[in-house]
């Protein structure tokens, strides 16, 4: 997956928002929300995402089998490696587990780790970007160089190195992805803040003698929340991508027998050649549908904010 650099477009959206007087800001927000809920791609994305969120909260609602429960027929026999049919809608895996149950139970790993790491990245990136964009100077120059360096390597490459070093616990994975996404968020926020800082309201706050902290948090921050929301939704998509890839590479969080889409694809993809496609294809479709839904939502939000 690619990293779309839309900092330019977002900056534009942010500064036009700040031009509006404060009392209008509320109505603008309301109208944007109305427009968003009327966007077909947003609705489709939200429906698919809600389904997966529901699966991760109450998987038992959708399947009677557990994630590690071997399907047994009435006569007590097991049916490993059986294709989709009446006994198992999505077939069974090599052990005899229900692939459908694995897909339903597999939602939670990605749906917990990805948004948390995206959130941490956006918060850290916002603080960093605000500081860099407002104060500029030598620290900004040095941090910018470090950010450039980190962004020149693929995220997954650094992620796999960090996870190999610090172990594949959930906290390591979440913090690693958060740390690796922070630079790109910081860069986007920095460019938004840089253009905000040249506007009159910041100048007048400075003349009033407000502190730098006050200007950043109370004056500039409310005008870049759109940038942050868009950045968050986009980062969630990339975080899902990274979490799933790490799982696929065998570096996913926690216990390897728990249902996880990436792990299940890794266990089943070599069996596609011998005809047992359902073991890996259904989890693959699950990941695909989840990332598509998140990107539909991200894209609709971005369009509404920038229109």
């Amino acid at each position, binding site marked *: *997956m*690619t*990293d*779309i*650099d839309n900092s330019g477009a977002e900056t534009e959206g942010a500064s036009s928002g700040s031009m509006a007087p404060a009392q209008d800001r509320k109505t603008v927000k309301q109208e944007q929300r109305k427009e968003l809920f009327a966007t077909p*791609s947003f609705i489709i994305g939200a429906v698919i995402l809600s389904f997966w969120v529901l699966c991760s909260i109450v998987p038992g609602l959708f399947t009677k089998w557990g994630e590690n429960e071997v399907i047994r027929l009435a006569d007590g026999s097991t049916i490993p490696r059986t294709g989709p049919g009446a006994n198992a809608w999505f077939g069974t895996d090599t052990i005899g587990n229900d692939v459908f149950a694995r897909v339903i139970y597999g939602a939670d790993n990605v749906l917990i780790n990805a948004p948390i790491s995206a959130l941490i990245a956006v918060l850290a990136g916002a603080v960093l970007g605000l500081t860099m964009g407002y104060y500029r100077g030598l620290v900004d120059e040095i941090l910018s*160089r*470090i950010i*450039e*360096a*980190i962004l*020149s*390597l*693929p*995220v*997954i*490459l*650094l992620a*796999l*190195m*960090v996870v*190999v*070093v*610090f*172990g594949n616990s959930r906290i390591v994975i979440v913090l690693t992805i958060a740390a690796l996404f922070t630079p790109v968020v910081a860069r986007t926020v920095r460019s938004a803040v840089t253009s905000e800082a040249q506007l009159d309201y910041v100048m007048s706050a400075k003349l009033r003698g407000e502190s730098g902290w006050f200007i950043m948090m109370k004056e500039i921050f409310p005008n870049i929340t759109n940038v942050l929301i868009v950045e968050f939704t986009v980062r969630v*998509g990339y975080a899902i*991508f990274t979490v*799933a*890839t790490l799982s*696929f*590479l065998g570096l996913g969080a926690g216990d390897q027998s728990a249902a996880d889409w990436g792990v299940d*694809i890794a266990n089943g*993809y070599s069996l*596609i*050649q011998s*005809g047992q*496609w359902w073991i*890996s*294809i259904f989890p*693959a*479709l699950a*990941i*695909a549908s989840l*990332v*598509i839904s*998140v*990107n*539909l939502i991200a*894209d609709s939000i971005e369009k509404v904010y920038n229109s």
Partner: protein
Amino acid sequence: MVRFIVRRLLLSIVTLFIILLVVFALTRVFPSDPAKQLAGPFASEERVAQLTESLGLDDPLPTQFFRLVRDVVTLDFGESFSQPGVRVIDLVRPALWNSAKLVFLALMITLPLSIVGGIVAARKKDTIIDRSIVSFGLASASIPDFVSGVLLQFIIGVQLGWLPSISNAPADAGFFGQLEYILLPALAILFVYFGYIARITRAGAVTALDSDYARTAYMKGMSTSEVVRKHVLKNALQPTVAVTGTQMGYLFGGLVGLERVFNYPGLGNLILRAALAPDFPLLQTSVVAVAVIFMIATLTSDLIIAWMNPRARLDVGEN
């Protein structure tokens, strides 16, 4: 122009230095002791100590870092930890060549298709054709590369049987025979990038089609396709070139999952192996290779843009 190139090269050196520092720091905190790993589980303490010394692992950290920098500058990367006696460069070179083949084929397919897609979408702006191209692109670009890889392998490789579904070409296959074996992973890359590049091209083309010079060209009596060919393309493609440059690092070093699906011995695969071993010299060298490729690619794309647009020459000179 010369000043621009020199400045960019100097900045690249700074970037490379920071990357080396990051990679070095990461490899030094590896929990496992590579000497112990190399010596094997039943090795004597002396053997481990001897290995530690010969690998220079007991030297002070600055010395070790300096040695890494020297290795990079002199392009002498030493021997692999996991395969003693094998020079790292002899492991990286074939992987780099394999990645280059895959990237070349993928770009040969992806760039023309997505540029045409983007321009068609721009010309049919806000019609059903435009929306289908943009929506398909958004959807396909969201899917992780290894997932598209698995799906394509199943549909095209196994169900339809159109293409070989593993990437190991027979030894006697010529250059083009080999390409056939990597067509499926290349198609997975097309899936990832089509939407992204088509979208960027579309945005560039929409601006260019709306511009004064395009309008002037129309008024001179040029047909739409002539206007696109002679005036729009050159301007619309600048963001496309920039984006292609920035994605080269990912294409060479980030396709770890996709290369695993097709069991393809590219750089991503090598990096995964080196990290799991752990094989520091191999890991450091392959990561540096990815970083250098990224730098060369972004510098090249900047130069191409400068050549396409005289105004950009001024801009890049300033920045």
